[in-house]
């Protein structure tokens, strides 16, 4: 039994844990972002407990009531409790945001690593395609895809994921090219490892931190796109509450009942800002050279 067989897993985990902790401590604002985001996730998971009123129950006698003890954020045009609709709407935003970001992250990184690893024509072709996708107005692309496929949760996830693939491909490609020349890759080749094994087992772990940090920033973007699509009217079907949809409905009564749009607007802004703080701080920690780059 060699030394490396003695409990390598805990030490590796501890290493990752320490590195993560260090990353968070480099820029304290990432803690602020993380705490806010965790609170939002918590509110979404425990929505029925935090806001016991039914988000779908209409009460026409109580419509358009300003915030009060019973309805802490007031009621909408159908007399539904806005606070309940916010916490239940958070579920939609988070599910669509997370699913589309993970999808884009997996596909984008795979494409980027493939381009970087293969090089040559494959690389040029793939990256040119990515550049076009990147240059295309992502909201408009998303909008057309959802309009064509029909507004269901699955289709929205696909549409948002498609618009966020290129940035992940870019971020995965550059370090793959750099790492391809490194000695440990030569060593892997000498040992007869397959391309797949080298890329997945040895290059991926090295670029994973960057991809994950990008993920938190693109999660913010995905949530913003989802809200924008919902505001335009392309989201899961009413009466299911979505933040963008609530603003869309509230917009009709903006002259006399401003709280209808203020509550969901604040919710969207807080979540996106928290994720941006989180991602921005972590990126500083990972690559001080890129500090604050967009």
């Amino acid at each position: 039994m060699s030394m490396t067989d003695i409990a390598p897993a805990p030490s590796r985990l501890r290493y990752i844990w320490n590195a993560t902790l260090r990353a968070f401590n480099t820029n304290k604002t990432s803690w602020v972002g993380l705490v806010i985001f965790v609170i939002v996730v918590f509110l979404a998971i425990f929505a029925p407990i935090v806001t016991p009123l039914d988000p779908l129950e209409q009460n026409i006698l109580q419509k358009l009531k300003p915030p009060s003890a019973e309805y802490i954020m007031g009621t909408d045009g159908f007399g539904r409790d806005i606070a309940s609709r916010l916490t239940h709407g958070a579920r939609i935003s988070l599910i669509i945001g997370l699913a589309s970001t993970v999808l884009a992250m997996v596909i984008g990184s795979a494409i980027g690593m493939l381009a970087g690893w293969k090089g040559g024509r494959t690389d040029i072709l793939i990256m040119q395609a990515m550049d076009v996708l990147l240059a295309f107005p992502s909201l408009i692309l998303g909008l057309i895809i959802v309009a064509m496929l029909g507004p269901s949760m699955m289709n929205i996830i696909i549409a948002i994921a498609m618009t966020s693939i290129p940035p992940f491909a870019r971020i995965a490609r550059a370090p793959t090219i750099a790492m391809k020349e490194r000695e440990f890759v030569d060593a892997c080749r000498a040992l007869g490892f397959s391309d797949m094994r080298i890329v997945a087992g040895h290059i991926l772990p090295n670029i994973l931190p960057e991809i994950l940090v990008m993920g938190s920033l693109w999660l913010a973007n995905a949530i913003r796109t989802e809200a924008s699509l919902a505001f335009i009217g392309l989201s899961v079907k009413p009466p299911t509450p979505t933040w963008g949809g609530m603003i869309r409905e509230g917009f009709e009564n903006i002259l006399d009942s401003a709280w209808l749009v203020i509550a969901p607007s604040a919710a969207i802004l807080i979540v996106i800002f928290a994720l941006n703080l989180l991602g921005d701080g972590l990126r500083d920690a990972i690559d001080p050279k890129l500090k604050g780059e967009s």
Partner: protein
Amino acid sequence: MTAFLIRRLGFAVVTLFAVLTLVFVLVRIVPGDPAQVILGDQASQEAIMALREKLGLNRPIHAQYLTFISGALVGDWGTSMVTGRPVIQEVLNVLPWTIELTLISLVIGIVIGVPLGIAAAVKRNRFTDYAARIASLLGLSFPPFVSALLLLLGFAILLPWFPVISARSGSATAWFQSITLPAINLGLITAAYITRVTRSAMLEVLQEDYVRTARAKGVPINAVIIRHALRNALIPVITIVGLYLGILIGNSVLTEIVFSRPGLGKLIVGALNQRDYTMLQGMMVIYTLVVVVVNLATDIAYGVADPRVKLK
């Protein structure tokens, strides 16, 4: 140089075909029969058949594809199913509004963003830097329709300084009143973006040897920042602002909707609501052409300005 131009042009043609094919496929994966979707459930069988005939859906798929591609290339971008007018005409009707809004906000964004980005980079890790970074991060966090709504609430409803609906009559005051809030909305978001890009580009350039050399030989600090650092930092800034065009178009769509301003935003949402698929397809083709041409122009301009690019 010629080889570089030919290669770039070749890429542009390939991309154009790729994206046009994507548009073609996208429009044809509509679940169900497009004619049925357009006419609704109550439509008679004859009406559906007639529309299929009119849209060319009866013809084999490769014939449809050839018609679509050749049409797109010679400037036949389809006809709106709702108004019966050519898509290009509908687009050209509202394009001035969108271009006006986009250009003014781009100017606002540059005027605010570039100096702020320089200040943040020069005063790195000091109060100015933190303030600029938090402000720009906040600006980037605003979905454009949320900030537009808040501006509308604040400066058109609570303080009735501006009209709620940006209608435009001939007078200069009316024009100013209708453009101000939408332009501020888009301009501030653009400024947030440009601030960050300028800051990071400046940070990188300020570390270069030639900046230190310039300082060492006694060039005043402001001259170093403007003449040596900023000039070099602007190259990446311009590229990224070019890429930002896509985001700017998306943001302008949302801004136009909130302020009820005529423009591409209203056109595209109207087409969506009326299920005007030919209109959407035509707009996609036009967007694609614009994007490919702008990309090509940026690439060439970049290659002319920076000889190193051609070597790649």
